[in-house]
């Protein structure tokens, strides 16, 4: 692919800053879900490291010019973890972190499920699962036609792979050799009501993506160095879309939220809220 102005959009921060960003995302998420009386905090915590590596060192985006035509696109297809993207965008300079206090508040633009209206940097509003990969594929396909050297990153949940539309998009992407499309699955193994394996088995998961024509890597979704190395080598195979099955821990970073179905929907309040923040603060 030809080089163009996209290469001028250098990552804003060095990769090492991603650890700090991840911690900030986690703390914001706990505060935001507490203030907003909302939840999906476990879903934010599980993806925080992936999002931090992307915004910390991989995505070619420019907060001072969020509409730049050849920017990388990031789509949070698992829109219920919207708090994590708002936090990442605010900490990356797209808007003030003060706005985060309004998460889910009356009259706020920061909805529980991510929305783009009035929020610079959000590429796609989601919340209904199974939408993001198609839109990302459309962006990637359009870029190929226009010979724009950018990438579309789509972060999916594991439960979202129950949706047939995800696989419609997966078929399309490989058929059209969209090696500028990247699917990252936050495989925290827990969906709304129960573990994924008890709800609708995805395994052999990597084999499914491979069978759909994707180049697949299974990665540790909390290991920044590993994630950075993987995401720096896209496309994994020329002519194939890349899929990263990121093994994660739901609720990662707050001991009593980890691997818990309960913390998909529970709002951190009272002593639980204090304890969660204490744990995260002691992480610094």
């Amino acid at each position, binding site marked *: 692919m030809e080089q163009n102005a996209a290469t001028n959009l250098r990552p804003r921060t060095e990769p090492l800053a991603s650890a700090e960003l991840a911690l900030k995302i986690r703390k914001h998420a706990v505060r935001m879900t507490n203030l907003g009386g909302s939840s999906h905090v476990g879903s934010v915590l599980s993806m925080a490291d992936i999002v931090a590596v992307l915004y910390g060192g991989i995505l070619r985006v420019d907060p001072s010019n969020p509409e730049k*035509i050849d920017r990388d696109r990031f789509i949070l297809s698992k829109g219920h973890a919207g708090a994590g993207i708002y936090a990442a965008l605010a900490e990356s300079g797209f808007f003030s972190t003060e706005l985060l206090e309004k998460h889910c508040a009356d009259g706020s633009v920061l909805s529980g499920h991510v929305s*783009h209206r009035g929020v610079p940097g959000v*590429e*796609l*509003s*989601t*919340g*209904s699962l*199974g*939408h993001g*990969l*198609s*839109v*990302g*594929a*459309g*962006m*990637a*396909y*359009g*870029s190929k*036609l*226009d010979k*724009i050297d950018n990438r*579309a990153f789509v972060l999916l949940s594991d439960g979202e792979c129950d949706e*047939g*539309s995800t696989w*419609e*998009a997966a*078929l*399309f992407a490989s058929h059209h050799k969209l090696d500028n499309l990247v699917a990252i699955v936050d495989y925290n193994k827990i969906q709304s009501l129960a573990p994924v394996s008890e709800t609708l088995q995805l395994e052999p998961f990597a084999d499914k993506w491979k069978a759909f024509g994707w180049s697949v890597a299974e990665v540790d979704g909390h290991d920044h160095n590993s994630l950075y190395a993987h995401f720096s080598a896209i496309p994994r195979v020329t002519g194939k879309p890349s899929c990263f099955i990121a093994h994660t821990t739901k609720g990662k970073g707050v001991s009593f939220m980890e691997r818990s179905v309960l913390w998909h929907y529970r709002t951190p309040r009272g002593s639980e809220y204090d304890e969660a923040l204490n744990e995260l603060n002691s992480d610094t």
Partner: protein
Amino acid sequence: MRDNFVRQLSELARSDPRIFLITADLGFKVLDNFAEEFPNQYLNVGIAEQNMIGLATGMAMNGRVVFCYSIGNFSTLRCLEQIRNDACYHEANVKVVAVGGGFSYGPLGISHHATEDLSIMRALPNMTIAVPGDQWEAREATKALAATPGTCYLRLDKSPAPATARAKEVFYIGKARTIREGTDITLIATGGILGPALEAADSLVEQGITCRVISMHTIKPFDSEAVLRACRETGGIVTVEEHTIHGGLGSLVAEVCMDAGVKPNVFRRIGLRAGFSSIVGAQEYLRREYGMDAKAIAKAVAELVSAGSPHAPRPRLKVSSGGATS
């Protein structure tokens, strides 16, 4: 109509590289020329309507004007949430095209009857809806929607009305066309069923009944003024749609009147009351079966004129007989 749509889209695509056509594996022989002439502006995504609308949204966000083509039910119902959340909410330049409005595919069964699409599409915010009645309107609507920013719905019919355009007439989205003047009743039709409405108006002349006939080719934005004028200036309103009576053109006209506090002297909605049609048949057959053909329309008008005559404000307008006016 679909051939005229494709011809018009080809003309647009020649001068505007942003124009793009996606089909979800339908349009046998119809889209071949387009595909051949514009290989970089055409895509068959396979039988995957949800993906089609998502892709179209992504491509529209990159600056394209993306037409998504399929049979009525597929391009609307199968991917309704993608149309709502992805296209409409993002005000993406996605143009949903339904071939086979109403009973166009009558013999194929209820799966292929597009008889609820207008009510459903109408409810979506940021959606422009065009339902051309004849070939000229089909071409003009295609042009107009390509130039209308945001998400649009174009409902095409297999049985267009005979040509209705006047010399040098200009087509405007959101502005109803008065095809003929009359005073006893105003027939407001949307889509190809404009044909039977005009035929009914013709046949009623013999009974001394004159009808204003309006082609309501745009459902959203809606030309409320044309409806209110019809209330004031004619003896009543009959709406004609090849679509359920729930939430479509007839409902819309009733809403407009109630909101404005203007009541037509007489009012009737002609449309599908039967729910699902488990019987099949040609479009013409099903129109007749469900009381939407010219004969049924004429009968309804005659009944209403007869019933409403003591109260109806009889002719207030001087009109030239039968001729089209603006």
